[in-house]
């Protein structure tokens, strides 16, 4: 079977072939892997790769697959899934020209206006959620194309609060 995942804007193709006894062969790019894997529970896998033990935990949401391995969580996006819920500056699915919040909240203060030039790291808007004021900063230098909310508005995750026109290529 072939599976496709994307991470950090790149797409990866994994060819994987398992036999009935838990033996697997896989290819990622030009690298070959041979290992045994065993399904401990729906979400937990035991992988032995040249005797080295890898404990992997995997879970799936509508738009991606979360993998926990060696203390790190990596989220892979499913091809074709939208940005819903994972927008926002700095988010791994963030698009750098649309500023949104990962949390439902209240817009406390819009700091910039349409047409403003902003620097990377400059504060754009303050949103209050979970009783905290959160400053959302610009992920990039550029120009403010539009401001879609005003002070006091409620905002849902993934809604674009401010649209930027980045001044330099990614």
């Amino acid at each position: 079977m072939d599976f496709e995942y994307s991470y950090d804007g790149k797409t990866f193709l994994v060819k994987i072939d398992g036999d009935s006894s838990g033996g697997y062969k896989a290819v990622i790019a030009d690298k070959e892997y041979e290992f045994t894997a065993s399904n401990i529970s729906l979400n937990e896998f035991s992988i032995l790769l040249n005797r080295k033990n890898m404990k992997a935990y995997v879970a799936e949401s509508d738009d991606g697959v979360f993998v926990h391995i060696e203390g790190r969580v990596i989220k892979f996006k499913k091809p074709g899934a939208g940005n819903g819920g994972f927008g926002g500056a700095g988010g791994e699915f963030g698009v750098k020209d649309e500023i949104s919040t990962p949390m439902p909240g209240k817009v406390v203060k819009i700091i910039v206006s349409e047409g403003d030039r902003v620097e990377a790291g400059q504060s754009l808007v303050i949103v209050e959620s979970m009783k905290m004021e959160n400053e959302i900063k610009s992920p990039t230098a550029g120009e403010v194309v539009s401001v879609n909310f005003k002070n006091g508005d409620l905002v849902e995750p993934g809604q674009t609060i401010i649209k930027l026109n980045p001044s330099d290529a990614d």
Partner: protein
Amino acid sequence: MFKKILIANRGEIAIRVMKACREMGIESVAVYSTIDRDALHVRTADEAICIGEASPNESYLNIDAIIKAVKETGAEAVHPGYGFLAENYLFAQRCEKEGIVFIGPDSKALKLVGDKVASREVTEKEGITLIPGMKDKSTDVNECLSEAEKIGFPVLLKASAGGGGKGMRVVNSKGELKDAVEAGMREAQTAFGDPSVYLEKYIEKPRHVEFQILADNHGNAVHLFERECSIQRRHQKIIEESPSTALDDDLRRKMGETALKVVEVSGYTNAGTVEFLLDENGNYYFLEVNARLQVEHPVTEMVCGIDLVHAQIRIASGEKLWFSQGDLSQRGHAIECRVYAEDPESNFLPSAGKILYMKEPTGPGIRHDCGVYSGCVVSVYYDPILSKLITWALTREICCRRMAAALSDFPVLGIKTDIEFLHDVIVHPEFLKGNTFTNFIPVNMPDWKPVVDDEMLNRSLLSAAIYSDNVGKRTVVSGKSEEFPSPWSTLGDWEIGK
């Protein structure tokens, strides 16, 4: 002793108190808001009662609703946990009026220590050293400006009511002050209903060191030594430990005595914490009294062997302290990491949503005070704390290694958490050396990102592919897999009649 206690809180702290009740042979009552029907604290209590809608003002902060629940369930006492009504003297006062025992100090002491400015005045009179600052709280930007110039920049801006770093800001220059005061007042208004702020001298490279206190209603008080809580982000603690690497026996004794004096002059009883800032020269400044069980109380429990919640309940029921200062000692080292639903890559923005999968770390010397579970939904309505991971070991070095291992063995999938960040703090050479101070994170870990090298990425891809491959196989042989007997396909001879 009480027969039944209502816990006016939710999450890990409510559960922790309920477990203590059970061990003491006391029945516990959970209160819950409508969206918390499936919350873990509801399932941990002996009894549970719904007190209102999701918004805290309509449930966990609703004094009338909680008093009604106490009466309806016949509870004799209320444990407020931390946050919500824990430091609200009006709630304590109401309990007193209704003949309900409030497990904490009385409303008078609560009112005094809850007002930072009044509290400063009382303690300063007794010769306890404070950080130079404004004499009074203010809601006037211009007044703040002139006071700040008197104190000298940098200054620290705080909300007069409340705690937990909400509304706290370092202001480096005159130019930044106006915006900072305005934002601080807005937050203070939202969080505590009181916009007042005050300013004080900002001390560089300070450590946050606090002393745990137990005081009974008969005039006896002891301290249970210190906790160092210097590792903070957004001016809020995320890692705490005991003992502090900065204290020697002499300084520990002196600070402990000062803490007991603060408690004495405040007329304070039950469990409380006296907070200090400690500078690099061993000078310490009284900050405030936290009039409740602290989030970080477990590190004291692990090191001193005293269960603070048991102690709170026994003291509230009228018992005299059953040990004296000389009976207490510190053994080994304990560290607590606060697990939050937040994104350390995006300025620690709170995160929310469904925990698709999680597994708690276990092992010798590991304690996990947890408020969530696999499948639960982390709501936007409440504090984003999920749990607290505490490790104990005989030495700080092993305690750190144990914590690092536990954090690595702690998958939480589906929402953002600070677990990876906490791990990287714990293994940071400066942390291991004990070079901890309140701006440790901006100084040592600016722009933190988790390191993912190509090999780890590939191993993750393999894991994802095995999962997807399995899902695929299961789709094909739906319900036939030996490994996963599907409950979707086992009805058959169960259903009789209709």
